[in-house]
């Protein structure tokens, strides 16, 4: 059993959703990938801010 899949068994409701894989979790703290995402999110947020004024 993969560690990230253990939570599916902890609660019946958990079985009806999705739980991130170890790879997805790793990418959440991968500095290179996150720096890229930081730029993308900032650009998107700036566009939302600009559209809102």
């Amino acid at each position, binding site marked *: 059993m993969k560690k*990230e899949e253990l*939570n*599916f068994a*902890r*609660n019946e*409701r*958990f079985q*009806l*959703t*999705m*739980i*991130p894989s170890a790879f997805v979790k790793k*990418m*959440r*703290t991968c*500095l290179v*990938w*996150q*720096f890229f*995402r*930081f730029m*993308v*999110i*900032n650009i*998107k*947020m*700036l*566009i*939302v*801010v*600009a*559209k*809102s*004024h």
Partner: protein
Amino acid sequence: MARLVVLGGGVAGHTTATFAAKWLGSGHEVVVVTPNSKWNWIPSNIWVGVGEMKKEEVVFDLAPVYAKAGITYKQALAVSINPEGNADSDKPFVTIEYTGQGKAGESETIEYDYLVNATGPKLNFGATPGLGEGGQMGEHTVSVCTADHAEHAYHELQKVFEKAKNGEKQKILVGTGHGLCTCQGAAFEYIFNIEHEANKAGIRDNLDIKWISNESFLGDFGMGGLHMKVGGYVVSSRLFAESLFAERGVDWLIGAHTSKVEKGKVEYELLDGTKGEETFDFAMLIPPFAGVGLKAYAKDGSDITDKLFAPNGFMKVDADYTPKPFEEWKASDWPKNYQTPDYKNIFAAGISFAPPHPISKIMESPNGTPIYPTPPRTGMPAGIIGKAVAASVYDLITKGEDAHLHEISMAEMGAACVASAGKGVFDGTAAAMTVYPVVPDFEKYPGTGRDTDYTFGEIGLAGHWIKHILHYMFIYKAKLLPGWTLIPE
């Protein structure tokens, strides 16, 4: 010389007053009336509530900032509005009661040419038996709504953590303290910060952490949920939120009206009418919001509060308040210029304006108990509305009473939300979300009601860095340090 009086010094009031003072210059007067001596960057109260920040890091003194800006500052509660003056004078005025500046308890009247109501909400703890009395938090639960509350929450949380470290199983309950609460996002962020801290402390296995909320589904957030682009799919925020709860092992109770709070126990009623109890060792329950209870009087002294304010105490503005079924709600119902219909020199900004209807679908249990989130109007929308109102007042003063008012509807406005889990620069994560527009417009965006190019969410360090940047950037802006006007709301 005209005088603008701003009631409230939170995000909306502070933004209105500081921009108005900058644009109007010394030829006109801006007065701020707020019972608080300090400004609070509320989103970071979450970190105070888990001990990752000190209270002093999220607040600063207002008096020197207003002195620098040329704003007259009165540390006082607004009590009433006389929009037509009184028997002695036609000049409109507000009555205030000091809470500081060496004049606590003293009353005063302030005449105005323009008035902006940005008092924010009353934290209505008294709406739920046992949650508190009136606006005062009770002894059984904690809150993170103010910096003082958050500091208190941290101390109480520490007690539970200590017991868990000693091997005792502890139950933590976080969510909403009434069926008509808003601000689920703050509770959402707090529960995952607690979970993160528990993991860090190595006590997660001894903590049963549970969510209780008035949302009919996880991820409603008071906005009726949203559809966002994630991993190449357009998915409901329900899936996004449920995934996060399952990943962190946090169980949930939704569609719940917290009907009573006692020591270590809440009673609740669910949307299907069933009633139940939930025990806890530590509970952070957000109270419902209400207007602050401002009264209004006509020239002859008669009470005209219901003319200016909705029954929930929020101020009526240029919205369409006609009651109508959910299917007939339209984006165009929402206000655009925030001017009161009966008095053209009074505006409301931020959470103080009465929304025409909720964004989430109105629901009630078979017993008739309303259980649905009320609409959020805090944060980015409050700041944007505050600036638009300041621009309108500036134009009215400098161009005359026929000046065009600045318009910005929450149906044409986005919001950015960053919900952290932890505070470390390299080990924390955050759910970064934007929603555009806040109020869904199904005529413009059939299907989801929103622009899915700009309604998105993802979890990671990047959002976490943004949360850090927002903390320092908005405190910098609120202190009016060099270049503050360049930082958007």
